């Protein structure tokens, strides 16, 4: 049975086809409520996500550049450099073509035309998010030079704006009105054991610190664990998306992109982040994530198989070792009705493959090995099995 047949209503169709853009020779993506990209480095996952952002928020992006005094002199190639990052003009060629929802997109034309600015519809949490807090405080869009991709500059700018919600000596975590109490407890346990995330002021400069709940004292970003350094900007990004109001989503936002959500995190912490991704889906965001973590695909595989076999929200929560409180069961049951898509980016061929079924028995190694993420485990087991079978000991 197809994993899609037991889902709730499908999302509004959103489809993109890209040919000959950077490492991508041919990509065809149909987006679900959750869309997962896997594949080796430099296979085009991030390029495609940034392109999707550009298509979704063209006028907003141009307005942001204009506000910051970024001028590409009407040259499309220069625009590609300032948007995707320095050197990315070479990604575009005469053979590049883009289709969105069946319509051919004239991207150079769209960049040059004058249109009234619209609200941002996609919030993008980039893989390089740790750079947004490298000085212990998010920098303004203008702080970065033009070689830095728009998505990182904009993410940093959003975090800077978010800080104003918390006052000058505020606590950022745990905060009663931010996140479900279940998430706060899990994050406290798996990412901030014994710590609070706070704002303090050092020589008139605000900065983020972790303070020990028992012993006090402030730990600046430089001495946090790698996982905490990676997670805090992600947490702040999630704060941006999960507004502390009755509205489930921030006004105007429809999409949430998280690149490499597992970065620096222990598997238990990855489980918490996946549950928070589910929360985004339940709030009505269309979520796109890229990942190099087999655990993320394990979670998606379990979600789909549990649904296929009529299991409930409690069963899904068991996968994450999460308490089946009323709120969490409701969340899990909501998510089990959602549509999920998984795509493998094949660097050699420059193509994408729909591996949504995540069938461990699929003849296609890209699917059974889940886009390479479980290939190593498979080979390790195979080598051990053969060695044990032939052991004369």
């Amino acid at each position, binding site marked *: 049975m197809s994993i899609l047949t037991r889902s709730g209503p499908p999302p509004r169709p959103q489809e993109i086809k890209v040919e000959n853009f950077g490492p991508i020779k041919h990509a065809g993506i149909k987006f679900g409520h959750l869309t997962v990209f896997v594949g080796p480095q430099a296979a085009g996952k991030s390029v495609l996500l940034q392109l999707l952002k550009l298509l979704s928020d063209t006028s907003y992006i141009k307005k942001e550049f204009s506000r910051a005094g970024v001028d590409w002199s009407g040259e499309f190639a220069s625009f590609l450099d300032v948007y995707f990052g320095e050197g990315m003009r070479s990604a575009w060629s005469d053979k590049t073509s883009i289709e969105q929802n069946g319509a051919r997109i004239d991207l150079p034309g769209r960049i040059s035309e004058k249109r009234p600015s619209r609200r941002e519809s996609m919030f993008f949490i980039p893989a390089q998010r740790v750079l947004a807090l490298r000085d212990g405080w998010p920098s303004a869009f203008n702080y970065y030079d033009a070689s830095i991709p728009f998505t990182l500059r904009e993410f940093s700018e959003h975090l800077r704006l978010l800080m104003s919600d918390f006052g000058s000596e505020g606590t950022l975590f745990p905060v009663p009105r931010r996140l479900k109490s279940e998430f706060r407890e899990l994050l406290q346990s798996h990412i901030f054991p014994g710590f609070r995330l706070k704002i303090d002021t050092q020589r008139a400069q605000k900065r983020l610190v972790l303070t020990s709940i028992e012993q006090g004292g402030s730990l600046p970003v430089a001495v946090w664990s790698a996982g905490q350094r990676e997670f805090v900007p992600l947490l702040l990004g999630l704060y941006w998306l999960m507004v502390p109001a009755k509205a489930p989503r921030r006004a105007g936002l429809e999409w949430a992109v998280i690149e490499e959500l597992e970065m620096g995190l222990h598997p238990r912490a990855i489980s918490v982040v996946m549950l928070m991704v589910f929360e985004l889906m339940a709030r009505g965001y269309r979520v796109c994530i890229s990942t190099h973590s087999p655990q993320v695909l394990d979670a998606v595989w379990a979600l789909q*198989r549990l649904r296929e076999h009529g299991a409930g929200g409690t069963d899904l929560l068991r996968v994450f070792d999460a308490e089946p409180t009323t709120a969490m069961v409701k969340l899990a049951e909501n998510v089990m009705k959602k549509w999920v898509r998984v795509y493998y980016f094949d660097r050699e061929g420059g193509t994408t493959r729909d591996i949504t079924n995540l069938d461990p*028995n699929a003849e296609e190694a890209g699917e059974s*090995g889940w886009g390479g993420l479980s290939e*190593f485990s498979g080979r390790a087991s195979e080598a051990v099995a053969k060695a044990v079978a032939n052991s004369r000991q």
Partner: protein
Amino acid sequence: MGFREEVEATPNLQGKWTAGLGALRAQDKARIKPENTSAKHLRGSVDIDSAWQQVEPQANRWDFAVGYKHVNRSDEFVYWVETHTGSDEQIKVMFRKLDWLKNWLKNAGKRLANFDRSFVWVPGGATSFTKGSTQVRSLAEKGLLYSGSTFRIPVTHEISKP
């Protein structure tokens, strides 16, 4: 002696050797795919389960053996193949079958124990295991290779002789 001769010299297997994958049931043949099926490589098969049913009717007997000559090995190689439902609750059954096979190879089947080998579980129907799962690792620890729905036998053997 080769695979065929050793099969013929094994108790209760006389006359049971068949060419190609002839010893396998039709539905199982579809799950075993040798890259090269010429007699030069595919050295035949034998149905252990049927041959030993009379002798040990209550035992968890093993299904099949398939002889194969890889281009990069001087000796023939034997794939001990069991086609069986791929689910958690069947793991214990598979371990019993593997114990039976290993014991059989030490006794009645000892002539066939001289070949290098793989013990392969080819799951029938849907499976609940993934390649990176702890179940697959625990099977590997016992020497059991979990193949996925199709077991491919390559012309070149991938693992060097231990």
